[in-house]
């Protein structure tokens, strides 16, 4: 039964990306219902008794425990990590942290880059040249290094991570917005608005800004994807959040030794989540980008 008709490869991209993200978010919101385990604890509470879980159990392990005479079965879909925490729960719970950091950082970036880009593009002249030169230089600088520098300075913590990552994307927003403003500035409808005596702020916010939104959306999704990677890298290097908060990069870093010793599930699943989240956002972003600027014209 064909419920939805999706034609065109860019629509498929948007669909699959959204689907992936939807599943991730869905699982994240419901993990407390789906899973009986606490992602930060290596024990589980059954009928008042605290049962400790064995570390490094492979995926699909089933353990039988006896509590007050009754038998219970504990199931670990993705196995347990080196401390005894259920990997599945941890990986699912991690998404809330990682995704919030990535999204908040990108939004913070947007809130700084957008107005700067709008103003700079619109005002022009020496201010624009100077600011553009600065932004281009930051843009050329490796994002991760910049984030590392800021994070090293600010220290570990949720807010600090968000700020560190936000700094990286300000130039990209600036450039996109400024570019759009520059090309829109010359358009006849802007001239018409000026001729009609509309105040500059009105033109800037009511005429130009809405036209910038489509590209902004594309860049935002792609930046979020990128931010997830930087977040993972920062926590892998120990500059992110401290344990026991569930975080994919952190889990890979802490499980490194055991992964290499053969406990592949400790590393694969967090890495898989990173990939899926990144792919989700990338597909949506690239899909919309294809829609707006079809790159390969078949005509």
């Amino acid at each position: 039964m064909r419920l939805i008709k999706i034609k065109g490869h860019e629509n498929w991209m948007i669909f699959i990306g959204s689907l992936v993200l939807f599943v991730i978010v869905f699982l994240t919101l419901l993990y407390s219902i789906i899973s009986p385990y606490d992602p930060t604890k290596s024990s589980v509470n059954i009928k008042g008794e605290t049962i400790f879980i064995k570390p490094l159990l492979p995926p699909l392990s089933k353990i039988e425990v006896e509590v007050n005479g009754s038998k219970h079965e504990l199931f670990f879909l993705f196995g347990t990590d080196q401390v005894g925490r259920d990997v599945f729960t941890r990986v699912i719970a991690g998404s809330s942290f990682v995704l919030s950091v990535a999204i908040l950082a990108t939004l913070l970036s947007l809130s700084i880059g957008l107005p700067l880009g709008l103003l700079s593009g619109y005002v022009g002249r020496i201010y624009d040249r100077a600011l553009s030169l600065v932004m281009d230089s930051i843009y050329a600088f490796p994002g991760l290094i910049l984030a590392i520098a800021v994070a090293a300075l600010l220290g570990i913590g949720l807010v600090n991570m968000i700020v560190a990552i936000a700094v990286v994307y300000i130039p990209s927003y600036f450039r996109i917005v400024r570019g759009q403003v520059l090309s829109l500035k010359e358009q006849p409808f802007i001239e018409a608005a000026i001729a009609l005596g509309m105040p500059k702020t009105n033109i800037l916010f009511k005429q130009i800004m809405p036209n910038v939104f489509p590209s902004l959306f594309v860049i935002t999704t792609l930046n979020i994807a990128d931010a997830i990677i930087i977040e993972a890298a920062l926590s892998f290097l120990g500059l992110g959040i401290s344990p026991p908060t569930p975080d994919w990069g952190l889990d890979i870093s802490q499980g490194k030794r055991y992964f290499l010793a053969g406990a592949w599930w400790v590393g694969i699943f967090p890495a898989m989540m990173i990939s899926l989240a990144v792919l989700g956002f990338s597909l949506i972003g690239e899909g919309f980008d294809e829609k707006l600027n079809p790159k390969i014209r078949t005509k």
Partner: protein
Amino acid sequence: MSLKSYIITRLLLTIPMVFILLSIVFVVLRVLPGDPVTMLEGKDIPEEVLQRRREELGLNKPIHEQYLSYLINIFQGNLGETALTKVPVTYFIIQRLPATVELAIMSMIFAVIIGIFLGSYGAYKFHRPLSYIVRIYGMIVYSIPVFFLGLLLIYILSISLGIFPTSLRLSPLLEIEYSTIRVTNFILIDSIILNRYDILYDWLHHLFLPSLVLGIYLSGIFVRLTHAQVAETLFKDFVTAARARGITERRILYKYGLRNALIPIVTMMGLQFAALLSGAVLTETVFNWPGIGSLVYESILARDYNLVQGSIVIYAFLVALVSLIVDITYAYIDPRIRY
């Protein structure tokens, strides 16, 4: 404008760029809220010790004085001294820079080989399955965190199959030997000069895996870009015109498709340099490759302010340098943009 005058103009433009980059590093490390000394040294060190550290690092002076001495020091080649051993930071950097250069070049080679050939062949077979696979490859490779890719390949190729060593640049014994006989600290050059092909082989053996990892990571972006650019060029009219003259398909793919696509690809190579440096930090850390990437990480772990600042300053210089090289190469390939 001829190539020569373009080069000169471009060289002159590098100066403001370097200044801006150095200023950015300064702003991040000193001006932003947050006290670097507290952050790096830790909160439970007594205040007098922290104050003394600040004095040592000159962090108590007014900002413009700090900025001036910062710039002057850098251009004199003085990046301060490490907190622990009082060894000049510059020494550390010079020592470790060659290793990162080796890794960078080898990774780029891998990335280019994989990226450009996969990308252009996929573009050539545009409407066949290969093209779609190639496009997806780019996206997937980008989404896998490079440090995990490193761990994965270490597990498969080093630990399970035992083909490659798991880390470092040379086997320990050879490393000790090498440190006594080194000339330029570039193993490729040194081993040939000294006629020590055992060191050369050992180095290649160690270099392969980390550069493969970093190369794969970078290739994703190259594959996608090459594919898009070559495909777009192959649809252009002058390609039809060339075909109408009976030019062979192979020439069309390489001389027309690829050559005209090289222009944005070269630009991307320059932009990729930033990704290369970022990736190098992670790859060097995972493989214990002794370059400046792992130096950044180690200096943060060691809470050594000058070392952190010094390695980031070096990154700034590298970025400006590569940006210069890319622009000049670009002008060489496409005669149109020499103004």
